[in-house]
């Protein structure tokens, strides 16, 4: 379980710490771009992130993976900065850069020595509206993305199984599609598709810039106005709701793949904080439920299933309260030596039943809350993570202030509330289960040297 809070409870930690809570300065440019700045003066460094409200869940059949593909192409140059220049300039300035695509966002970032922030802003502003998408660069990058897919999914039995699991668990929610896209879709994308997607979503009024570091907020604001201010906003498309249709019974699937070990994934459909409406305590209660099951080595899955009953070699649970659409509360695990997938599933179901039937003990609840508080302090050791929290909550439509409520909201969760959400959501009509049943893998035999396709000259 990831603890995400940024707010402290006065009763547990010294007052001075609460006073030291870093302020977030919020600005909006005339063209609609949002800027969030948080000061952190521990080291002369700065993290700069640009978040776009677009990701795999904005995509539809035939073009899955396009957001991620565009992310790759965003490094392929503008009129001012030809292909490769972006990375070269950031490198010359001692920076680190990268980008990531999720279901709900696409984000680009640099970490730099603090005086180099203008370099980041200049380059990001340039490629926000002036990207050149050429056939030549696209053809190569499409191959790179297909290699990425082979590396991360096609040759990884568990990743592949989870991809298929999502596709079965959802009927029409866009979360049924993998972020990297289905192979045929990725192969079929064209430069024209990407130009359309870029034009649609990459605009100042669809972006949030987050800066955390050794900076002055007003100076950052002035800098943002200078670089991002001149950019023209877009007319953004209305996002269709695409709510998941009702599920009418448990779904089960078996995946046969060459693998060494069996694997189990279960998921219950649960609302996210954003789709929950007024009853937002439910999201925090689900978060606590995930902590009770998998909040460290003392949590139930480790202590009861891995150590106690020894039915699992590994076991985990997770819930993502900061997603844009309703998501899954998931359980996953590997059976212990000599135990079956069925036995592991039964053990998971027993743990679920226990959450439904018995209120969580006070000591357990306190332990989850103590960890939330401590992790809140630990998170502040990472500027990058703090910037991510701000950018993510803003981009999924919750607003960054949500993270300031996290610790208090988790602290307010009662044992009865955990029991209530378990009863309400952990039911068969919301459940999907997948088994990975391994097919035998040919053993990795050493190939005879004679049959090698490699000429000796390559390895002289």
């Amino acid at each position, binding site marked *: 379980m990831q603890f995400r809070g940024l707010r402290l409870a006065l009763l547990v930690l010294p007052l001075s710490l609460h006073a030291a809570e870093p302020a977030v300065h919020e600005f909006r440019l005339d063209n609609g771009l949002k800027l969030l700045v948080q000061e952190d003066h521990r080291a002369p460094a700065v993290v700069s992130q640009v978040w776009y409200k677009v990701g795999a869940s904005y995509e539809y059949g035939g073009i899955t993976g396009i957001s991620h593909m565009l992310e790759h192409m965003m*490094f392929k140059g503008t009129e001012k900065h030809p292909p*490769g220049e972006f990375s070269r300039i950031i*490198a010359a300035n001692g920076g680190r850069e990268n980008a990531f695509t999720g279901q709900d966002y696409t984000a680009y970032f640099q970490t730099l020595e603090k005086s180099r922030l203008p370099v980041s802003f200049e380059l990001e502003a340039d490629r926000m509206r002036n990207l050149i998408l050429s056939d030549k660069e696209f053809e190569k990058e499409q191959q790179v993305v297909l290699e990425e897919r082979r590396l991360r999914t096609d040759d990884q039995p568990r990743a592949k199984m989870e991809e298929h699991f999502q596709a079965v668990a959802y009927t029409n929610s866009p979360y049924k599609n993998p972020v990297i896209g289905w192979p045929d879709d990725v192969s079929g994308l064209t430069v024209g598709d990407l130009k359309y997607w870029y034009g649609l979503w990459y605009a100042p009024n669809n972006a949030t810039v987050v800066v955390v570091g050794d900076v002055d907020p007003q100076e950052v604001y002035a800098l943002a106005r200078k670089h991002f201010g001149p950019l023209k906003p877009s007319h953004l498309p209305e996002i269709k709701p695409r709510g998941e249709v009702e599920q009418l019974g448990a779904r089960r699937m078996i995946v046969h793949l060459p693998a060494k070990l069996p694997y189990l994934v279960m998921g219950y459909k649960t609302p996210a904080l954003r789709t929950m409406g007024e009853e937002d305590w439910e999201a925090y209660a689900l978060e606590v439920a995930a902590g009770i099951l998998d909040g460290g080595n003392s949590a139930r899955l480790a202590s009861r299933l891995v150590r106690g009953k020894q039915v699992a070699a590994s076991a985990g649970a997770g819930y993502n309260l900061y997603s844009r659409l309703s998501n899954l509360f998931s359980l996953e695990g590997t059976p212990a030596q000599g135990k079956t997938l069925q036995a592991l599933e039964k053990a998971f179901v027993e743990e679920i039943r226990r959450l439904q039937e018995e209120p969580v003990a006070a000591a357990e609840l306190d332990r989850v809350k103590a960890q939330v508080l401590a992790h809140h302090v630990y998170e502040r050791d990472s500027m990058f993570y703090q910037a991510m929290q701000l950018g993510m909550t803003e981009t999924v439509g919750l607003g960054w202030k949500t993270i300031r409520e996290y610790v208090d909201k988790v602290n307010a969760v009662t044992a009865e509330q955990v029991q209530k959400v378990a009863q309400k959501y952990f039911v068969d009509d919301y459940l999907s289960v997948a088994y990975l049943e391994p097919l035998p893998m040919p053993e990795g035999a050493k190939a005879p040297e004679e049959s090698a396709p*490699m000429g000796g000259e390559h390895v002289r």
Partner: protein
Amino acid sequence: MSVKRLSRWLVFLFLMVSAPVYAVPEIQHWVSPQGGRVYFVPTEGLPLLDVQVVFDAGSARDGEQFGLAALTSGMLDTGAGDWDADAIAQRLENIGASLSTGVSRDSAWLSLRSLTHPEKLAVALETAREILSRPRFDKNDFEREKNRTLLGIKQRGEDPGELVEIAFFQALYGNHPYAHPQEGFAETVAPLTREDLVDFHKRYYVASNAIVVIVGEAKRAEAETIAEKLLSGLQKGAAPAVLSAPAPLQSTEIIKQHFPSEQTHVRAGVLGMTATDPDYFPLYVGNHVLGGSGLVSRISKEVREKRGLSYSAYSYFMPLRELGPFQMGLQTRNDQAEEALRVALDAIRNFAANGPTEEELEAAKKNILGGFVLRLDSNRKLAQQVAIIALYNRPLDYLATFTEKVKAVTREDIKRAFRTRIDPGKIRTVLVGGGAK
């Protein structure tokens, strides 16, 4: 966290070759009354403390029992003193502390992160002390953890990326203690007994073999007390014998393992450098140009940017106590493995013969020096850097002089260092995948 993929390229964090800063934090050093070496860096701003206790007790100390060091380390927190695994986990998690243990080839470590609140910190330290000095290695726990290790070893057989790494180290190191994977093999783990672990712990988890790194909000006097408390349960013992040097490679060799995957994973390399190598800076800066700086490095440009052959393509030196590897890695569609390997090896050979251009060297220095501050901008990163300095007995001013040493590197230094280290006639190459037939 819901980020599905950090997608643009794999971020390689080679802490061992990277190093640190600007207003460089000063490392305080002393020897505890028990004989352990202590390294302390006070920081301000957050009420937290990172502590690492490091032993020369990594997998290089396995002897013939590959996997012994890893299993010993993995069992430390499953029972110690008066507490079983549940009690230990509850004690730590009640106060929000986090504790982990692990091994590399050269070391075994315990990492502890705690709030500085005195009562909480006291509980965290007491628990860590018991884990280090009075592990139970209870029979039931032992059987369970051994079985989990065996399953982990089995699962590794699903992943061509792991198999290629194992095969590469074997090809490079032969019979040397660096040759085998930390977790061992099924054949070497299965016969391990509880007594083997007890003996290993007794031999290597001793004060004379211990390093304590403390980074965070504390005063010197507190740091002294913390180190003393942590080591107070350990026997004095003795530091282990010096490792032998790996045998020099005499020839090239290609090793191929067929694997039913869509990609073929490729590794190629030679014996590289030690952690205190006199050529450390020329090799580090040189490799930054060759394959160490992400997409702008030569190997990545040739393999990925120009030809679209691989998602990641890189090279690095992994400095160890004895000669660590220099290795190039990539993975590509089976039918392209030969071409990708050729392109990458050409880049290496060309670089070893001619070194970087003046512009490339300049760019590499700008990147390394400009990014120096980013290597130490959190307690966690600082603690990791200090632990490496301590483990390898690097000079205490290593961070303070790093910038000057990088600046001083010339093209000639790099050419000379690469020519002597990377002999194209000694490269070991390993391919694992559907293309390795």
